[in-house]
């Protein structure tokens, strides 16, 4: 479509939207559209055809009916903190921002749930629930900014997934506007509903099956107490074995995180968390529950870590020390950003037992490509975030980092893991989907998409590659310098 056609389309749409959306919330000028050109993955940028910010469900329905009639693609967007380009706009498409859907509609403490609009921030739910002694468990690191609608779209995780699950495990119901502008309710007031589990199908579908306009999440009682132990190891394999030993002990930690030497040193230099910088790796193991349970378990964790060969185990003596232990982990990404001009963050998940092999191979790839790597690891659930350090201004480094990253993801698939644990496929990893899934499975994904959206108007081109695309396989890139919201924790 050429510019003249786009201009005509933009005007036609704006005119129709203006019948029910105030002018201030229909953006069509280039300078108004620029802020929306990318999400948290700023390596990809498209200025959308236009942006519309509806304020109620009826408006979203009307917008979808118009877009359906005009056959214009629609990309939904929450806070735009996603790291895989899931909310990347289309030059010939409408960007539907749910930013004005920012109200908490109700906290039903007696039924342990909260009903919120999709533009409500993740952390705001827990803040609103706190007076009732409740909280919302999934805690993606960008939780002060990311919205629950985006969390649903990406099936967001966090550091507490092993014990408390992902977004999909913490939802009760959704209100969804279909591509035809119809409103459907998925899930219900109880713990299940008739028919297929569309709640699970919708979660993590990256805005490609419908527009989520209302979310009811489960709330949990706030644990009485949390306690963290930090253990140092003189080699990574011992640390990996210690993780397995804790699990074998029958303990289910609320959080279990590992950092290797490059990442723990960078973090220590940055925030002075008190990490032992001579260690080859450290583990952070948090347990939570009531007072009695935490005392019992932290003692077992401590003993187990020592028996497993930890050179040192420290238990946080108070909340301040606990916060400091975590601060280092949570600052790992920006800390690495300080020691390298750029870095590329990967997000593979592997069966935990393969950690030593994967780390060894990453180390040898690091030599092969002549680029440093630092690893942070959600050790409890096997989600590995290797950070590849490179200098985008040095000729050839960017391409090498790209190849290095691609090889890591392929390695994750090879050991029985996955190319993305929690950041989503979006546009970033769409090529690696070809390594993860054979053609018949990809065809089934497209068939599912077609069941909801036969014309392919909802966030087209994301998450599921066409079979043709799989013929042209190649990794893409994030530049640390372009990471938006650099003040947010990323881990």
């Amino acid at each position, binding site marked *: 479509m050429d510019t003249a056609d786009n201009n005509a389309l933009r005007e036609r749409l704006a005119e129709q939207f203006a019948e029910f959306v105030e002018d201030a919330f229909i953006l069509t000028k280039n300078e108004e559209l620029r802020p929306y050109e990318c999400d948290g993955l700023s390596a990809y940028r498209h200025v959308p055809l236009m942006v519309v910010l509806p304020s109620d469900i009826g408006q979203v329905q009307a917008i979808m009916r118009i877009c359906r009639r005009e056959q214009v693609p629609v990309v939904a967007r929450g806070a735009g903190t996603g790291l895989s380009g899931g909310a990347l706009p289309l030059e010939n498409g409408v960007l539907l921002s749910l930013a004005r859907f920012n109200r908490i509609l109700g906290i039903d*403490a*007696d*039924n*342990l749930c909260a009903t919120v609009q999709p533009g409500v921030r993740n952390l705001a739910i827990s803040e609103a629930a706190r007076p009732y*002694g409740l909280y919302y468990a999934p805690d993606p690191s960008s939780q002060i900014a990311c919205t629950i609608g985006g969390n649903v779209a990406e*099936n967001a995780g966090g550091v507490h997934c*092993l014990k408390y*699950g*992902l977004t999909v*495990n913490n939802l009760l119901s959704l209100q969804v506007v279909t591509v035809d502008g*119809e409103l*459907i*309710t998925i899930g*219900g*007031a*109880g*713990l*299940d*509903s*008739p*028919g*297929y*589990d*569309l709640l*699970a*199908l919708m979660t*993590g579908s990256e805005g490609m099956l419908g527009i989520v306009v209302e979310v009811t999440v489960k709330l949990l*009682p706030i644990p*009485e107490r949390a306690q963290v132990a930090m253990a140092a190891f003189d080699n990574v394999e011992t640390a990996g074995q210690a993780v*397995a030993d804790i*699990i074998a002990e*029958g303990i*289910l930690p609320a959080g279990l995180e590992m950092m290797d030497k490059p990442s723990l040193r960078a973090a220590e230099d940055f925030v002075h968390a008190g990490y032992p910088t001579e260690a080859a790796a450290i583990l952070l193991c948090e347990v939570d*529950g*009531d007072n009695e*349970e935490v*005392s*019992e378990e932290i003692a077992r964790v401590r003993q187990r870590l020592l028996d497993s060969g930890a050179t040192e185990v420290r238990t946080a003596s108070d909340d301040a020390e606990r916060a400091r232990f975590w601060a280092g982990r949570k600052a790992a990404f920006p800390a690495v950003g300080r020691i390298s001009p750029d870095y590329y963050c990967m997000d593979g*998940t592997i*069966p935990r037992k393969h950690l030593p092999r994967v780390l060894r191979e990453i180390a040898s790839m690091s030599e092969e490509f002549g680029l440093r790597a630092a690893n942070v690891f*959600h050790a409890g*659930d096997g*989600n590995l975030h290797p950070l590849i350090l490179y200098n985008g201004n040095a000729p050839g480094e960017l391409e090498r980092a790209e190849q290095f990253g691609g090889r890591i993801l392929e390695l994750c698939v090879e050991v*029985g*893991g*996955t*190319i*993305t*644990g*929690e*950041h989503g*496929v979006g546009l970033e990893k769409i090529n690696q989907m070809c390594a993860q899934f054979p053609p*018949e*499975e990809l065809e*089934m*994904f497209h*068939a*599912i998409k077609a*069941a909801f959206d036969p014309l392919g108007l909802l966030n087209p081109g994301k*998450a599921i590659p066409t079979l043709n695309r799989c013929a042209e396989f190649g990794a893409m890139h994030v530049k640390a310098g372009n990471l938006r919201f650099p003040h947010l924790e990323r881990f």
Partner: protein
Amino acid sequence: MGDIASQLQQQVRAAFDAQTPLRLRGGDSKAFYGNHVEGEEVDLRGHSGVVSYEPTELVLSARGGTPLAEIEALLAEHGQQLTFEPPHFAEGATIGGAIASGLAGPLRPWGGAPRDVLLGVKLLDGQGRILNFGGQVMKNVAGYDVSRLMAGAQGTLGALLEVSLKVLPAPPKTRTLVMDLNRQPALKRMRELSRQPVPLSGAAWHDGRLYLRLSGAHASVNAWRERIGGERLAENTTFWQRLRDQQLDFFKQDGTLWRLSLAGNTPRLDCEQQVIVDWAGAQRWMFSDVNAHAIREQAAALGGHAQAFRKAERDADIDTFAPMPPLLLQLHRELKQRFDPQGILNPGRLFQ
């Protein structure tokens, strides 16, 4: 124990070509659940065996026909469990059936449903294609979550050849408390306790008594047992197992056994006559003289739904499941068509 995937595949392919309806079966322990299916039998029991299990990975993969009892015994040996506390109902229940039925036991509000622990599936679809979705890792957002879609689909989208499940350590200590309480105060008590960080693992009311199960660290269970009070049931009480498998005398009544799924604090519905309250109020087993339509209306009015779980003969024509709104039903048909274009897999079991 064995791998008969290719044999099953041939059977489904032949049925696809001939448009022969198929009735998928495992142990047939849950054959009563769902609408009646007429079709050529596909027996999945021969496709059996644990494929991989390493306790420290917290993941178990097994073929669909593996007996549930075998899996639970294996997990128990390693101090682990399936957190959805699957109902068996009868001997011979299989893991494939446990997942496909989507049913969960008394631990459900805290331990989740089959869909919550299902990490991956190997699926035999209605064209006889073997497809793999998800995997053996806890976190995986590559592609749509087709695995979880299979939980509760009752085989209408495909036969579960293999499932990978998240398993968790079994709690070190479990104890049950009982107290005499009328229904409404019992429900109130369940909801109050659910809101606090109590290590609850069961909350049911039956015949004037409130049953509370506590599971967790020794110190924690002991402390809460003191705080909550009530009479202590023997450690080896079979109450929860008999509730889970519907072996309590309550379940032996004549008539259709209804299952109500509601928000936990929903007060007694008009239709609720003979009732066991489970899941801290969110699941209610009921016998009632009220007609099916009225039961469904009452549940739906409060955001819940009612299932004719075990139908008496005179109610054989009642749909097991509450009707879906037209748009949702249309989506279901579209999805079914993608997985099973000839409509040969358990036709009508879930919806028409």
